[in-house]
């Protein structure tokens, strides 16, 4: 027992390796939120009039809304007047090549293990890196442009492709959707934009890397991804933040649009700072992610590995509007210490012969709480809709909790919907089996957890899967004896 405790302490103290702060001079807005701040952000970005109007509309709507409290999480409410809504690494002039980027910044990304160097082509991933609030560089832009793929920061897209942004922004997540999406719409400062033209199969993984650096800031990024008819794209997203005592807010919005026959694969490895072992500090991760299968035979697949954040509140959803469209959701959510996660998905079956699949694996340790909250809705006209959901929970320790709230609403009699869920702990017989074969308990636990999460891990692109597996081991190291 003593051993076990010290093991826990050891890991807790040594765990979060991305917790450093980079000393970069930042261009910031004063804390607080009012109409002027919204105008300030818009002006900073040199945005057209329609964008400012859109933001102000969102802001005015946000004022009328109340912060939701239905989720199974407890936290100290955010004071929205104490947050800085804009913080950008200060730069003298516009950068033309990545060599001109602040060396401090480059070091940050090297520490994070992200190659911004175009030379490192072997990694074969195009990255858009967002620090605090702004995108600082996008790699492989030219090669992608040759295929007609637009991959840039959203501010750039607003300048250069206003017709696309104007048409699609807010079309999947309207500004009135929820409290946090309205807030995001008003103050989002950057994010990624991607457009894949008709019939193009994107030759490499596209990736965004988010990092909160400055103190007292919130990060509000916006991702808009459009896959036109018959195209394919695989998109990755990663996040980290420094260790700070106060809670920081992250309220992002991601919108995916898949036209006829298009396919989008969106993978996230979320590793925001989870707070220390007493639950102090950490990121509030209140994110709205939604995709729409606009045309027939479209497919959207969400894969997420959630190990960070003190509070996670996130439901990547798919609206299956086109006939024969498909939605998938694969998730591993790990909570340790005082972390709380309320995550899941929504599958809205509207078109005929639509299919969806949900695989959710929750792992709770310490005194954490892990909830799956999902909705499968089959509309009146969604003939022959098919859904299969599976939610498994693994409990490590006797002080944590696992919760399942699956809502299933079926209004069509030709639909077939199945849901199953189990909750268990790692069996003594399983550990004994491993011990017998010379595998120590710690490794055995890691082995079993990896097996438990394998179905989801298999969905991740290779480079990500390796990282995610390590992350899983680090997050839970020492929490089982």
């Amino acid at each position, binding site marked *: 027992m003593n051993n076990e405790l010290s093991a826990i302490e050891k890991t807790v103290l040594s765990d979060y390796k991305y917790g450093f702060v980079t000393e970069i001079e930042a261009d910031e807005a004063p804390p607080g939120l009012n109409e002027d701040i919204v105008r300030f952000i818009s002006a900073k970005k040199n945005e057209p009039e329609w964008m400012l109007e859109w933001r102000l509309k969102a802001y005015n709507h946000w004022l009328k809304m109340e912060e939701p409290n239905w989720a199974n999480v407890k936290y100290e409410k955010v004071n929205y007047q104490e947050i800085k809504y804009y913080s950008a690494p200060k730069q003298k002039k516009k950068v033309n090549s990545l060599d001109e980027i602040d060396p401090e910044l480059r070091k940050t990304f090297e520490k994070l293990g992200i190659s911004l160097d175009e030379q490192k082509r072997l990694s074969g991933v195009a990255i858009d890196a967002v620090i605090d609030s702004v995108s600082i560089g996008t790699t492989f832009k030219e090669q992608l442009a040759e295929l007609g793929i637009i991959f840039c920061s959203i501010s750039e897209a607003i300048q250069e492709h206003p017709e696309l942004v104007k048409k699609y922004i807010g079309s999947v997540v309207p500004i009135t959707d929820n409290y946090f999406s309205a807030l995001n719409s008003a103050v989002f400062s950057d994010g990624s934009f991607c457009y894949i033209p008709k019939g193009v199969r994107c030759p490499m993984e596209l990736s965004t890397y988010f990092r909160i650096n400055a103190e007292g800031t919130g990060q509000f990024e916006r991702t808009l991804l459009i896959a036109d008819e018959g195209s394919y794209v695989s998109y990755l997203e990663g996040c980290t933040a420094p260790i700070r005592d106060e809670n920081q807010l992250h309220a992002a919005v991601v919108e995916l649009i898949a036209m006829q026959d298009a396919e989008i694969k969106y993978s996230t490895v979320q590793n925001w700072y989870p707070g220390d072992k007493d639950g102090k500090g950490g990121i509030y991760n209140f994110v709205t992610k939604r995709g729409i299968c606009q045309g027939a035979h479209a497919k959207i697949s969400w894969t997420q590995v959630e190990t960070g954040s003190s509070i996670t509140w996130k439901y990547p959803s798919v609206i299956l509007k086109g006939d024969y469209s498909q939605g998938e959701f694969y998730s591993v959510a790990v909570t340790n210490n005082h972390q709380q996660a309320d995550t899941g998905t929504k599958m809205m079956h509207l078109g005929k012969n639509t299919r969806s699949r949900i695989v959710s694996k929750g792992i709770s340790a310490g005194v954490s709480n892990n909830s799956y909250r999902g909705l499968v809705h089959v509309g009146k006209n969604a003939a022959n809709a098919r859904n299969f959901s599976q939610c498994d929970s693994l409990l490590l320790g006797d*002080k944590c*909790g696992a919760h399942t709230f*699956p809502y299933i609403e079926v209004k069509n009699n*030709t639909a077939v919907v199945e*849901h*199953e869920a189990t909750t268990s*702990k790692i069996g003594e017989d399983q550990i004994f089996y491993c011990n017998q074969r010379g595998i120590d308990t710690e490794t055995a636990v890691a082995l079993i957890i990896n097996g438990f999460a394998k179905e989801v891990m298999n969905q991740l692109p290779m480079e990500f899967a390796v990282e995610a597996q390590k992350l899983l081991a680090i997050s839970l190291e020492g929490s089982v004896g």
Partner: protein
Amino acid sequence: MNNLEYIKERFNQLPAVGENGLGVIRQKAFDALNTMGIPTTRHEEWKYTRIGSFFNKEFKYTAAHPTAITATDLSAVRLPGYEQANELVYINGRYAPELSVLRSKGLTVQPLQEAAKNEYKDLVSKHLGHSSDYLKDGINALSTAFVQDGVFVHIKKGQIVEHPIYIYNITDAREANVLAQPRTLVYVSENAQVKFVETFNTLGTQESFTNRVIEIIVEKDAITEYYKLQTDASHASQVATTHIRQIGKCVTHTVTVSLNEGLVRNNLNIVLDEQYCEAHLYGIYLQQGQSHIDNHTVVDHAQPHCESNELYKGMLDDQSTGVFNGKIFVRKDAQKTNAYQSNKNVLLAEGASVNTKPQLEIFADDVKCSHGCTIGRLDEESLFYMRSRGITEATAKSLLLHGFAMDILEQIKLDPIREYVDKLISERLEFDIA
């Protein structure tokens, strides 16, 4: 005047607080009703069931003169096997001793008002209203606010009640819309065994709304079976709460059969408050027309080493709607819990819909819990198999559905009742038992 205002006025006409042993609990419930109000669909537990309209219409909350119900009326609603049963009759929510028959000796049935003052007063004050810990809404509070008309049933230590207890809830809606609030507290002592069968009937063509609460406390080594049959007409709606608290290692077995034509909301709460308890919950619903069935169940594993088993099956035809919400709580100390839950639905028509939410909340690690739910239609291959052997489509369908219902029917351990329910279901499915 809105009906709720009328009900509140009726409350104020009742004897003042403190005049009987139930005053305090009644006042508390009345205050709770005033704060919470009647639940709307914004209330998470009432998301799919609307009852607000029953409080916008005029419903009379009065005791029909018991003599208005004759023995002929009663014989029309009697369940098979009544000759060998104890019969408790409630008219418009009030106990009618002159129509009730107690065949088993040593069975105590008395008004709650009396039980709250005599030798049972400790039991009553300890257990009455326990369901409100689990049902945080005005509708439960409404029942408790009028608890003075309730009945207390006591099964003494070691008593094996051979004759089942049939409870008839009769609403006389021949002259006006009626609100009935039958209320019962049952105490099953150590080593006792008892079986309950409960039914609901509305006479006449006016509307009825029944707000039923029965609380059953079971001591150690006792066995309790409880069957609820809902076959009431389309102008009869009800919220029926069954709250079972197992305070010793004991076994309970419940089956809910819903063949109602109106709106029915069932709350079934089972609290496993001692080690080594066992609870079995079964339900079948077959809905047609515009009917609405809502089954909310809670199984609270508060102590270690308990086991619960839950299976609800539903068939939804025409424009009917079905709601299932099964909650399983496993508290921090409830290690070695085994909890299983399953909900299966068949949608038979285009307009039918179902909303289901099997919910698990687990705070202990050494547990085995699983839940599952399915929604689908009849298996094409099975239908084809039968049709290729010369069975008509209609017969093949009713055969399959009857087979679907069998799992639950088999759980009714009282022969006359099982045969009766089988007959009712077969009639609905146009299935020939022979």
